[in-house]
């Protein structure tokens, strides 16, 4: 059952991602990207990362993509603008280079380079405590310093966005 679900959701994810890069209208592109992110949330649920899936939908599909759509509609772009392309010959080499990159990544995945140590958080253990509770515990104990630095990063980003968007400093 979950195998079929994986293949269906993976197909939807890749299809919408490919539609995104060939879509002329940025609004439709943003909608395709929202679908990609929702499908990724389904994959996170299949990987038993329920909290990450919820955050993915709330933060990515909710907050970030609404910001993108807001900016697209604020700028009110001309769709024909895209037709003017100074480097039309860049398209085919770009696709070939992308295929080459994919081949290299696949070689690395198939090699024995990617080895990891098994940790204690088995599915049964995580389910006995709860995914969200475990993540919260780790965030506020072992990962407290990165968490605080992250809050400073968000603060700086908010100030930077306001300063950049201001008309006159």
């Amino acid at each position, binding site marked *: 059952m979950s195998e079929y679900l994986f293949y269906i959701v993976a197909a939807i994810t890749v299809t919408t991602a490919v539609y995104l890069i060939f879509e002329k209208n940025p609004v439709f592109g943003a909608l395709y990207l929202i679908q990609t992110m929702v499908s990724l949330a389904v994959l996170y649920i*299949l990987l*038993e990362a329920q909290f990450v899936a919820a955050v993915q939908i709330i933060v*990515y599909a909710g907050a970030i993509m609404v910001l993108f759509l807001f900016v697209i509609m604020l*700028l009110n772009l001309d769709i024909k603008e*895209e037709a*003017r392309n100074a480097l039309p010959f860049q398209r085919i080499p770009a696709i070939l280079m*992308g295929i080459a990159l994919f081949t290299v990544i696949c070689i690395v995945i198939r090699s024995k380079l990617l080895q990891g140590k098994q940790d204690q958080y088995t599915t049964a253990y995580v389910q006995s405590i709860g995914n969200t509770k475990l993540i919260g515990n780790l965030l506020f104990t072992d990962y407290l310093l990165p968490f605080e630095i992250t809050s400073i990063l968000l603060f700086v980003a908010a100030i*930077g*966005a306001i300063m950049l968007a201001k008309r006159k400093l």
Partner: protein
Amino acid sequence: MITITHYLVLSAILFTVGVIGVLIRRNAIIIFMCIELMLNAVNLSFVACAHYLNSMQGQLFVFFTMTVAAAEAAVGLAIIVAVFRNKETVNIDDINIMKW
């Protein structure tokens, strides 16, 4: 049986699609969305590795990636709005004032 390889290959496909999108598109907002797609692909491999190694670190790292992505989206879109205000376009062929 779905192994970690399936998820890593899916992640590689999504990352490649994002790279190709950055290279072939000329609209700055679409390029930005392709960068978000690449960040999402990396998040997927983090979560897959965390699941198959019975680890929690991958899931925790995804939160930090998401925070960086959110900060990047806010600042980057502000830059795009500022550029549009000066140049009346977001086509990156016209935004070449910093090129040599």
